[in-house]
């Protein structure tokens, strides 16, 4: 099986090189003999890469299920007693496997791209050639630098080292694929953009073609990031879900530029503006996805999530430099083609709100990148490394996010081209009054923003969230009222109609609502509290309004791990409301321990229990956290997913006005 996998990898490299080489040759010399046929062979070779890499991937999975520890990767990342679901996740739990998985996903995207080549044969040929170039890089990596089928030297061990305990959690089976789908997916809009630039493609068709690709990719990345956050919350056990770790930051960077691209691309579609800006946004998104991988694989920065570090950093930095050079050369050579057809006419307009929104998103991206790389810069300049952790990011990113929220609130109220101040005042008064009322209400409820900066930021975040909700709702209401007047439907049905008529616009607004809800959830962290105590059976501890009583602790054993659980009864106002089971597991193969958090989540707050260990006399030590509003973060993510889903659905046909039938119905009623 390993030999079959190795040959499949070699075949994928050969096909990638052929697809790129011949594809480029045909595009450079379109009049050469048999150019069309050669181009077709390149396209089919591109589709063949998917088959070859599927074979390689299946070979690795089969080796894992067969416990073939002659393969070094299987020995290092699996063991005999690992459950079948996690045997699948072995594929992306280490360096070599995850790069193979990355290459396979890219080939799958490439397959769809080449399959649908009739949408625009020439543009797809260019995009296919660029995707093939990226594929060559990954094929070289998995063949030469990080071969997943490398064999063990010497005797074959009877059992493997096992999967990293932190990865033995259900979310880890879907989090990495989602994240990779997001990372890899940005290659497609990047390839179309670069292809369109190289061939000086007229019009905005490439944007129309890639619109759904970009949105789907962005959705995957959003889901990947959220699943990662949920995994961190449930497994790492430090009480939070976002710690501004370099690996988290690496996934957030392309998300920010991708979000900016999704917004500004509308300006190009609608008004032929910001063409250069959009080109560089999608270039940056692709480069940041590669850069993120470089960051996490090269060991340049230390991370709690870095499961796969090695010496492949130089490969990535070379590829990154080469990709940047290609983008720059193509841009310099063809920049005249990217001249805007229109100019901004007013600072107070929908266009400028898009521009400011882009600017703030890029500032956020820069801040995250700056903070992530500052330790390296500091070491280079001062000779000493410094830590840039959560206190830095929270202090710098929160004001930027609040500014972004303000812009998100204002955007829908601004008209295209120019907006009068009277119009802003008219549309903004009620939402602004609601936001101020919210702030006053929160202070009346006992918030003290003047005492702690974190409480001030939370108050601002929730007030601005109300502002955004109010402006978005007013947009829905305004449109729905018009439809209701014309059709006689109720307001809710009219809102559904409105959304169906322009799914992209109103789906986008729902995404905004999702983001705002998630930010409300994040704002709750200003009020997090925790307490730690050693408990014997019958002992209790109090946190928030809860009393936690340890009933007993139990032990269990299975071939993969031994576990200890604390059985904790939860009381509120003297009544028992729940029983929780925080757990710690000792994984036998890897000889490592991990915690499994017990969490009782309500809309108000999470009661989060961690079994941190045992005291010297063998009694469990429990750490309890009260994390307010966390559930709203996950609800926000679900709303974001729903909104993106709606935005992906094609618009319904224009609503046919049923005014005459209503008149007829009224006449019949009058006749009766």
């Amino acid at each position, binding site marked *: 099986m390993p030999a079959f996998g190795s040959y499949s990898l070699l075949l994928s490299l050969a096909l990638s090189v052929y697809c790129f080489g011949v594809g480029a040759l045909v595009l450079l010399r379109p009049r050469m003999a048999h150019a069309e046929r050669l181009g077709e062979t390149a396209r089919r070779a591109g589709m063949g890469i998917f088959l070859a890499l599927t074979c390689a991937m299946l070979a690795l999975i089969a080796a894992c299920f067969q416990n073939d520890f002659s393969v070094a990767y299987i020995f290092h990342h699996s063991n005999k007693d690992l459950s079948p679901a996690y045997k699948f996740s072995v594929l992306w739990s280490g360096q070599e496997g995850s790069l193979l998985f990355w290459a396979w996903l890219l080939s799958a995207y490439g397959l769809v791209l080449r399959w649908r080549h009739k949408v625009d044969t020439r543009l797809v040929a260019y995009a296919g050639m660029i995707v093939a170039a990226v594929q060559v890089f990954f094929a070289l990596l998995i063949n030469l630098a990080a071969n997943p089928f490398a064999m063990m030297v010497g005797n074959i061990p009877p059992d493997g080292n096992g999967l990293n305990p932190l990865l033995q959690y259900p979310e880890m089976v879907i989090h990495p694929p989602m994240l990779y789908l997001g990372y890899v997916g940005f290659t497609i809009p990047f390839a179309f953009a670069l292809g369109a630039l190289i061939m000086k493609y007229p019009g905005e068709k490439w944007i129309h073609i890639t619109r759904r690709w970009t949105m789907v990719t962005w959705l995957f990345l959003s889901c990947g990031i959220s699943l990662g956050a949920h995994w961190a919350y449930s497994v790492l056990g430090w009480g939070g879900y976002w710690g501004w770790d370099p690996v988290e930051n690496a996934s957030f960077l392309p998300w920010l530029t991708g979000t900016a691209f999704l917004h500004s691309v509308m300006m190009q579609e*609608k008004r032929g503006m910001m063409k250069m800006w959009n080109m560089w946004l999608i270039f940056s998104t692709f480069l940041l996805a590669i850069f993120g991988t470089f960051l996490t694989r090269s060991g340049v920065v230390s991370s709690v999530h870095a499961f796969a570090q090695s010496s492949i950093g130089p490969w990535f930095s070379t590829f990154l430099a080469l990709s940047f050079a290609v983008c720059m050369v193509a841009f310099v050579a063809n920049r005249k083609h990217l001249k805007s057809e229109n100019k901004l006419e007013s600072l107070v307009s929908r266009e400028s709100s898009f521009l400011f929104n882009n*600017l703030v998103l890029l500032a956020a991206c820069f801040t995250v990148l700056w903070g992530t790389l500052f330790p390296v810069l500091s070491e280079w300049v001062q000779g000493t490394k410094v830590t840039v952790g*959560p206190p830095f990011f929270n202090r710098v990113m929160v004001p930027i996010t609040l500014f972004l929220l303000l812009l998100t609130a204002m955007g829908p109220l601004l008209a295209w081209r120019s907006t009068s101040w009277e119009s802003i005042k008219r549309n903004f008064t009620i939402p602004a009054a609601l936001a101020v009322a919210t702030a006053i209400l929160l202070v009346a409820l006992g918030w003290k923003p003047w005492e702690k900066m974190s409480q001030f930021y939370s108050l601002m975040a929730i007030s601005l969230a109300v502002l955004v909700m109010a402006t978005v709702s007013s947009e829905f209401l305004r449109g729905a009222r018009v439809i209701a007047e014309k059709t006689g439907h109720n307001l809710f049905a009219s809102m559904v109609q409105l959304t169906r008529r322009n799914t992209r616009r109103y789906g986008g607004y729902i995404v905004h609502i999702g983001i705002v809800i998630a930010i409300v959830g994040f704002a709750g962290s200003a009020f997090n509290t925790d307490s730690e105590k050693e408990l014997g059976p019958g002992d209790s501890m109090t946190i928030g309004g809860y009393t936690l009583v340890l009933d007993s602790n139990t032990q269990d054993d299975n071939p993969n791990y031994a576990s200890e659980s604390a059985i904790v009864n939860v009381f509120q106002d003297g009544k028992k409301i729940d029983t929780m089971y925080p757990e710690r597991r000792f994984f036998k193969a890897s000889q490592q321990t991990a915690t499994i958090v017990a969490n009782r989540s309500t809309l108000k707050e999470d009661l989060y229990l961690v079994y941190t260990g045992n005291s010297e006399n063998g009694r469990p030590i429990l750490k309890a956290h009260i994390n307010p509003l966390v559930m709203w973060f996950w609800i926000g993510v679900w709303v974001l997913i729903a909104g993106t889903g709606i935005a992906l659905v094609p618009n319904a046909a224009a609503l046919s006005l049923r005014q005459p039938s209503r008149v007829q119905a009224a006449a019949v009623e009058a006749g009766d």
Partner: protein
Amino acid sequence: MKRLLQSVLLAAACILLLGASDFNARFNELGHKMMCKCGCNQVLLECNHVNCTYSDRMRDELTAALQRGDSDDLILQGFVQKYGATVLAAPTTTGFNRIAWIMPFAALGAGLLAVVYVVRRWKARQPAVAAASAGEAAPAGFDEYRQRARQETEL
């Protein structure tokens, strides 16, 4: 006299409780300004590694320093001397490290100024272009304008 004694005791209890609350607040604040040095890359009070050889010791040291009555700066300096500059969870606001704090806002400010400048420049050029194009556009009829308005306003 009895009432006075009660009042004094109550005041003392309040001060003690306030002191305890102040102690906890400072412990919490300082503990979130430092990183655990076990290599977990987590904030000191958030490190929950089972059998972590650093976090418990560091927390005890922090408690001891607070009980000695050391100031926040002195405590942080003491930790930096013992564990190195990377023990601080964020760069200081002195020397080169100050750049870490300034750059994000400087970049945002520069970007905002650039956008305002560019838009104003474009706006200043607009009237001449608009006047030149107004004469040509008039006879085209309303359909073209409707189409353009739909194109430009419907997202």
